């Protein structure tokens, strides 16, 4: 394959890592912020249930955070990996960053919507908390699957690059 100056590999790595982490942070932050907002509303309505609401909020936000952590992992791998100085590698690095970055936009937001609704539901009927938590974790896990696919594609691109 066509060899290039290692300088361009560095340019591509910095671009890919920046896009990955920048886009990946957006989704997780929106989702977690939405969850936090709904929990504050719920605690305002049911101050007596603040303990279980806080617990469920932190659990839901931790799961919504995974897409941001995926983006962080891929960005670090792009920055500190050693890659061959060929033309396809440059675009593989940018592609790996875009894959996990864009995926984080969707999965982070989606997981946040689930945990927000679960917390609002617990505030409405506190005795359903175990069922709500189970369905919340299941729904968030399923909404993360596309993020896992994107992580897999990013890793394949990095290994081939």
């Amino acid at each position, binding site marked *: *394959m*066509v060899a290039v100056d290692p300088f361009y590999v560095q340019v591509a790595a910095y671009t890919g890592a920046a896009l990955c982490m920048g*886009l990946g942070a957006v*989704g997780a932050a929106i*989702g977690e912020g939405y969850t936090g907002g709904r929990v504050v509303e719920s605690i305002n309505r049911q101050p007596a249930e603040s303990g279980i609401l806080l617990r469920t909020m932190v659990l839901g936000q931790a799961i919504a955070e995974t897409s941001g952590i995926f983006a962080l992992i891929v960005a670090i791998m792009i920055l500190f990996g050693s890659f061959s100085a*060929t*033309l*396809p590698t*440059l*675009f*593989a690095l*940018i*592609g790996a960053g*875009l*894959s*996990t970055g*864009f*995926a984080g*936009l*969707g*999965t*982070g*937001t*989606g*997981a*946040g*919507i*689930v945990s*927000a*609704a679960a917390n*609002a*539901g*617990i505030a*409405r*009927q506190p*005795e*359903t908390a175990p*069922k*709500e938590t*189970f*369905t*919340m974790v*299941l*729904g*968030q896990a*399923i*909404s*993360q*699957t*596309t*993020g896992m*696919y*994107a992580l*897999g*594609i*990013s890793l*394949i*691109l990095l290994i*081939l*690059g």
Partner: protein
Amino acid sequence: MDLDTVNVLAPAIIKAAAYLGAGVAMGIGAIGPGIGEGYIGGKACEGISRRPEQSGLLTRTMVLADAISETTGVYSLIIALILIIMAGRI
């Protein structure tokens, strides 16, 4: 550009485009299912708080709806894998 340069450059450019395309296809394709499945999960949680005795039915329906919403994400995955495999054969 003479023919020799084109013969050297073309496979590298095709491979580079396939790698970039795989990343973009999987990344943008994952946005929709992520938000859609989150919306379904949220509505299922709301439904359980209204009718807790139907939680089994609601969870089953949520998983089925998630699977259908997931299909476009799987299409993206397949296209990304095809692009990567085809690029590897150049």
